[in-house]
């Protein structure tokens, strides 16, 4: 038993801040909280942007060689090379947002609000705040500031620890 009470716990390190990568941590956090787990998310490096007041998330075809978009009744590959063409990433983002709406997938804003309502603990990495020159004013209300030791101590008490 990882902790004294019967409550299961989950921790996550969130390192990525593009629209597609924002989904797994927020989906898992909100679902785990709904299932009665105590959840804690540690936002570091590009993941920290997910705590900004105004989210303007985009996807990039670069580094996503397996990305395919349903188009004209087929799936169109998005080779890395096309991301160098101006407007391609913006178009891919618009396409993704359109699909999200059409398929009844939650917005990141909604999932984040649900996570906060469900008492998911959010920790903003202090070092990343300094590194990228963010202030607490840039961020939503709720997250506390912390560092690696804060995460590690919490992780030792968790049943599930994920790095995303």
């Amino acid at each position, binding site marked *: 038993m990882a902790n004294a009470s019967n409550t299961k716990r989950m921790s996550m390190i969130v390192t990525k801040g593009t629209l597609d990568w924002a989904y797994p941590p927020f*989906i898992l956090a*909100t*679902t785990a909280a*709904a*299932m*009665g787990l105590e959840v804690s998310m540690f936002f570091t490096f590009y993941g920290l942007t997910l705590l900004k007041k105004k989210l303007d998330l985009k996807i990039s075809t670069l580094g996503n060689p397996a990305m395919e978009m349903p188009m004209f009744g087929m799936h169109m590959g998005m080779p890395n090379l096309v991301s160098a063409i101006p407007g391609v990433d913006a178009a891919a983002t618009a396409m993704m947002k359109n699909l999200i709406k059409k*398929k*009844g*997938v*939650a917005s990141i804003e909604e999932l984040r609000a*649900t996570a906060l309502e469900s008492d998911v603990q959010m920790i903003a990495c202090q070092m990343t705040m300094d590194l990228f020159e963010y202030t607490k004013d840039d961020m939503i209300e709720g997250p506390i500031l912390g560092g690696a030791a804060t995460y590690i101590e919490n992780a030792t008490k968790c049943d599930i620890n994920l790095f995303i």
Partner: protein
Amino acid sequence: MADQLLDAKGLNCPLPILRAKKALKDVAVGGTLEVLATDPGAVKDFEAFCRATGNELLSSKEDGKVFSFVIKRTG
């Protein structure tokens, strides 16, 4: 007939579960909530959700493209 009805049709994972969790708060202990959903993944997910939360899944049915789950709030 369940005490409360939640229409989660057209919503995708994990929204049916999140909405059900919220709706269960307004159901009295011992009362029931019926959830309608079109997400086929919800079948397995509601089984897991009920096992994890201790709520009882009284029924899980499929009628055409609509799934219906009746959950009894136990605590």
